[in-house]
């Protein structure tokens, strides 16, 4: 057991898997000698050798394409896309190849690759270092989408993703790499070390894909959230005093419908929170699922608290970010309806 922040936990997951399985290898822009611009692969090349963790050309399509070829061969590539905003050049390879390979070959070829990428705002990255593109992957059958909210989950989920038989998009909320940010940007930053989920086992362990966690139990209202927004929702619950149940989805596809319906059948009210732009965001799918599965339990309209339908503006970081006040407002609206 050690105290780890998210970066250390992710690094530890990759270290464990490089040690455990010779078919695991890591590549991406600046991940080799340098250890990645967020230092997630720090020391891995030195420890495991140049062939196990190396730099790639700046070509996201190529990173994914070669990983697909490697996965089809039988390796377990773990690739890094430096920022989620730069996934789009690889979108075709992900959607048309990685996601389809098992199906179109009737299982003859498979594609067990893991794509890690920092996503989300909160670090003044402007519109090209702040995006949350997860919904663009949840619409694509054949891939899984995973988003951790704390060091313990991050390590366990990443190991599960690497061991999964199918391609997994693993989005890392970069704003909480170093501490559990709750949206109060004007307050001092908390380090992970003060948070219980920074207690992370040193070796191998897994957190299963497809299972949500309950970040806070409650009876009055359900908040569905993931990544950074789990911490924002926790703050909002505390500040409003509303007895909210906060579901940390952890996996978006396949989503844990049981945990969701159980919670909403109990509370009858639902607020969905994400940082991505609203229209056709994953919140739309969650809304649809909740109303399809729990229509007769709903006592109020489902609320969505999301990023606006604009790019992420550099100077208006905190006006854009769906912070605790906006979540609190939505929770109150849901309670009052």
């Amino acid at each position: 057991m050690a105290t780890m922040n998210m970066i250390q936990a992710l690094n530890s997951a990759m270290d464990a898997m490089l040690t455990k399985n010779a078919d695991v290898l890591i590549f991406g822009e600046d991940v080799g000698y340098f250890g990645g611009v967020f230092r997630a692969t720090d020391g891995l090349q030195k420890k495991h050798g140049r062939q196990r963790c190396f730099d790639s050309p700046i070509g996201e399509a190529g990173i994914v394409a070669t990983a697909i070829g490697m996965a089809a061969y039988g390796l377990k590539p773990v690739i890094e896309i430096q920022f989620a905003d730069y996934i789009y050049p690889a979108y075709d390879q992900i959607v048309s190849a990685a996601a389809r390979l098992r199906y179109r070959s009737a299982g003859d070829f498979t594609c067990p690759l893991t794509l890690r990428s920092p996503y989300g705002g909160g670090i003044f990255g402007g519109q090209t270092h702040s995006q949350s593109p997860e919904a663009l992957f949840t619409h694509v059958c054949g891939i899984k989408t995973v988003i951790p909210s704390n060091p313990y989950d991050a390590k366990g989920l990443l190991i599960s993703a690497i061991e999964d038989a199918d391609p997994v998009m693993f989005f890392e909320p970069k704003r909480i790499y170093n501490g559990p940010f709750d949206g109060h940007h004007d307050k001092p930053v908390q380090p992970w070390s003060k948070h219980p989920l920074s207690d992370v086992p040193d070796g191998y362990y897994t957190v299963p894909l497809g299972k949500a966690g309950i970040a806070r139990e409650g009876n009055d209202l359900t908040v569905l959230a993931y990544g950074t927004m789990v911490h924002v929702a926790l703050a909002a619950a505390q500040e409003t005093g509303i007895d909210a149940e906060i579901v940390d989805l952890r996996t978006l596809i396949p989503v844990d419908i049981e945990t969701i319906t159980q919670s909403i059948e109990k509370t009858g009210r639902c607020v969905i929170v994400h940082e991505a732009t609203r229209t056709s965001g994953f919140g739309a799918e969650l809304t649809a699922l909740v109303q399809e599965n729990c229509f007769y339990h709903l006592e109020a309209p489902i609320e969505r608290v999301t990023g606006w339908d604009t790019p992420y503006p550099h100077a208006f970081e905190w006006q854009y970010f769906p912070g605790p006040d906006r979540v609190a407002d939505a929770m109150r609206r849901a309670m009052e309806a």
Partner: protein
Amino acid sequence: MKNRAPLSLHIPEPKHRPGDRPDFSDIKVPKAGEMRRPDINVAAKDTLDLAYSLIRVLGEDNEVHGPWAPMLDLELMKRGLRNMMTTRIYDDRMYRAQRQGKTSFYMKCTGEEAIAVAQAAALDAEDMCFPTYRQQGLLIARGYPMVDMMCQVYSNERDPLKGRQLPIMYSSKKHGFFSIAGNLAMHFAQAVGWAMASAYKNDDRIVSTWIGDGSTAEGDFHTALVFAAVYRAPVILNIVNNQWAISSYQGIAGGEESTFAARGVGHGIPSLRVDGNDFLAVYAVTKWAADRARANLGPTVIEHFTYRAEGHSTSDDPSRYRPADEAKAWPLGDPIDRLKKHLIALGKWSDAEHTALEKEIDEQIRAAQKEAESHGTLGSGKLPSVKTMFEDVYKEMPWHIRRQRQEMGV
């Protein structure tokens, strides 16, 4: 604005359109045997002449010439001839089956048979192939059951791909044949990844991959060259320049300004341009490239200069955009015809034997077709179970797909 001549936009246009007389006299065809054969550890930049010219072995005299002559044994050549003939007859039968309404779509490789068949001969059976839709010859040469090929084309109950793929999008890991995708060029870069994996594992299997002239415009073509060069991946990067991409001639892909092989040189990859209708030349350059890959010298680019003798697919009517008799004017002849004449010139083959072989293959294919059709044709209702439609999206079926299957009532 300054007082300057105005700019103007250049739109490439092929020399001939329907109604014109085809004329390929602008294509410089070097004599067979004329091109030098460098050592396999040649520097990329020292292959420039080879990337701009055309490596040819079989001459007009039906004899082999020059340093690229591969000196093949007779059995190998005869097998090559048979495989090319089988490919052509298979194509004809399946084309006809589509016209008879037995399936939705078909694509021939007529005139390009040497490219897949000679390469299959030059590669090891274990080497991995990432083909396009015009290398069905690989499967035939590697002994993939023809009935299975047909069942895939018919999307019937025995289709190994369970009716999921458009006809001709075969897949067979066992035969080292990567699942074909409808999306052009993607696989070219994936092939490099497979090759990198093989090198990573200190395996000894190399990779060969093919792409059409038109498809080289895609970003993934570039990706493949960059990654292959950087990591010296053991891969043969074949460009099949058959002059056309549906209705667009190769000038629309940049063929007006350069050869496709020349692209490889720019990336630091030794590159060759070969007469794609010359079985022996294709064999020879493939062997050279394979030797490079096996010696850890990295990738090779090969441009196969050939001609798409028929329509793009059953959905196409080439007489709308090119002279109807252009194929006949093609100066590099037909690969089957040329190999046949070579064997005859060697005194090891005859017209009578050729006709007999043709007949034998035809019968074999008819028999296979009969068997395949006994398992159904598209629309005949003989399909894999509808249940299978929901399988293989993931290894384990998640709840939402299971529910959808239930919703469908299967």
